[in-house]
């Protein structure tokens, strides 16, 4: 039994890391642009479809282009549609990104068909790893390592680069950043593109695990919102901790009370918000007060 629980913990960690990746993209777009991006799930699907297309046509090494292309699509979407909404009624952003989600789903369906498409992990990542009582697939271990690397690299980017500092400052007071002479429109496009790039990485990684179909991102969006809420708005550390908590609680609930598995993350959110209404690491943000 202990071995089974340890294996569930590891699976919970892998799922949690994927959720973190999705939630961080959602969080930086909201933090900087004030847009609740309902199309984030659609960008996950776009990333997955680009990945399978690149693999089929150019082999696995080409797959790294999938998130980059997803990010570029995000930049184009920001430059043509999203930027017209800054400073306007927040509801408009919700409506537009919801419409974008439907548009991308329909576009994927039109291009690739509505059926789920086969997408297996690469041959060198097939197989199982058994460490004592812990059972894990090689692919999931790779997902864990890639996700952890991406998240650490992104943290370092935010922490140590000039653009990262601009993003962090802009999340708190975009107007002040603009007054300092920084070209905000370019920053905004970059931030939306980075958020979509992270969604593209998530799409690439979950493609071989989930059912690859145009609506595949829809089910990932709600956990991502819950993680952002639990972690605290705009907190990178909060998103990371909350993602792992949601993954772990989900896996352990399946083990001990499977009937509650769908509700477990909401119960967790409720408990956290009762104790800390701003989330685990949330701070007071003037612009959202």
């Amino acid at each position: 039994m202990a071995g089974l629980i340890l294996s569930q913990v590891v699976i919970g960690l892998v799922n949690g890391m994927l959720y973190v990746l999705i939630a961080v993209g959602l969080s930086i777009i909201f933090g900087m642009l004030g847009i609740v991006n309902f199309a984030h799930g659609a960008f996950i699907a776009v990333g997955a479809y680009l990945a399978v297309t690149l693999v089929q046509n150019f082999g696995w090494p080409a797959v790294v282009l999938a998130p980059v292309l997803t990010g570029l699509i995000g930049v184009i979407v920001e430059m043509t549609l999203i930027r017209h909404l800054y400073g306007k009624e927040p509801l408009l952003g919700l409506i537009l990104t919801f419409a974008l989600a439907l548009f991308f789903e329909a576009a994927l369906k039109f291009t690739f068909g509505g059926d789920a498409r086969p997408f297996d992990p690469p041959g060198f990542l097939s197989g199982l790893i058994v460490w004592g009582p812990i059972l894990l697939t090689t692919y999931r271990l790779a997902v864990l390592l890639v996700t952890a690397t991406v998240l650490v690299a992104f943290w370092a980017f935010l922490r140590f680069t000039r653009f990262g500092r601009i993003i962090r400052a802009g999340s708190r007071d975009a107007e002040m950043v603009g007054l300092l002479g920084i070209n905000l429109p370019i920053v905004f496009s970059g931030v939306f593109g980075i958020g979509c790039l992270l969604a593209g990485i998530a799409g690439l990684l979950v493609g071989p695990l989930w059912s690859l179909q145009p609506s595949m991102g829809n089910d990932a969006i709600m956990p991502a919102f819950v993680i952002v809420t639990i972690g605290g708005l705009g907190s990178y550390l909060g998103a990371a901790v909350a993602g792992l908590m949601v993954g772990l609680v989900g896996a352990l609930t399946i083990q001990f009370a499977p009937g509650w598995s769908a509700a477990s993350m909401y119960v967790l959110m409720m408990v956290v918000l009762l104790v800390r209404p701003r989330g685990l690491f949330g701070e007071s943000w003037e612009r959202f007060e």
Partner: protein
Amino acid sequence: MSQIKKPSSSLLLPIGRRGLLKGGAATAVSSLAMPWVSRANADAPIQIGMVWAKNGPLSGQGQYLAQGGLLALQQRKNMLMGKPAEIIWLDESSPQNSAQNAAKLMGEDKVVGVVGGVISAFALAIAPVAEKMKVPFIAANGAADELTGVDCNKYTFRSQPPVHVHREMFGPYCKALGKKWYLITAAYAYGQDIKKEFTDYAKENGIEIVGADEVPLSATDYSSYILKIRAAKPDVVIGGVVGGGLTAFLKQWEQLGMRGKIPFTEISIGCTDIWGVGPKAADGLFTMTWYYTNKKNSPAEQQMAADYLATYKRPAADKAWMGWIAMKSLLDSIEAAKSTKPAAIVEALEHWSMPRGDINLHYRTFDHQMINRALVVKVKPKITDQWDYFDVLAELPKSPAEVEAVYGTQAQSACKMGPV
């Protein structure tokens, strides 16, 4: 002394002889002046409704069901009773949304019949709307027992065999695989029916249930469930996971090294669920309502498969057949009734039949359940065609008498149907 009052004349329309003559003349003049008004009504196409998922995880199945329905009308050159006919297809994303769109079709668009309900929960939501609006509805993809059981009504028909029928046909196959079962089913009406039916079957046949999990419809990761199954060491897994959930489950089942180690079985799956899994991970023993390479397909079904291939450039999935047979039965019945009146169509549906081998497909009058066989199919050991994943092992039940018997008798049915 009480006096019976004459109705007040003010309650009656004040139309006298002159008024009537004036009205008649005005109508005659207006029809001369605007002849297209009356002609438009006469030439207005007969409208049929479809409610199938266009978006979301169920849209993969929805598109095939819809294509089958469209094909059934196309095979008639889009004509019914010598008039043009057209299909209005609305989306469904939840039971509430299914019911709303069905009500819109029946109330605003005045369709003469509706085919739809991509899953049992959606079909169960449409059925009471059909009863209230008095418009015939055919549930083509809902297998929950209630549809033609306790929740049946005079306007609702069902072309898919219900869960208990699949169980009766498939139970012996699962039993032959072993006497320790693990159930993993979706947490809604259909999955809960599978759980109940197979648990009952296990009790009746001395089979031990070593585990049973209900999975949320929104689940994307099944590895935690698979670890539990692996630890429970069952002889066979009875699934009740639907659509993209089944696809994800089988992919993760293979990745965790379970493919071929413990047999996976499930009733009433669709081709599309397995196409998405891919040849490497596809595995299992299933029931299915129809398969395009089955040598026992009737001439009409073979024609449908050929027409589908010509139109959509790929083989007809089982869901395409399900959409087709439901729509065909409705269109045949409208034609037979020579009327678009609901009561006439309901009566014609109750008398509709189509030969298939040694049986006639038909709806029973007492519960409106279509009588048909089901197939037992197994994933091929080696898949060389991107569409052809299955070997058909059997068509069950074997004899026509057994086919009737497996659906149960009127006395056994929970359906208590009112009049039209």
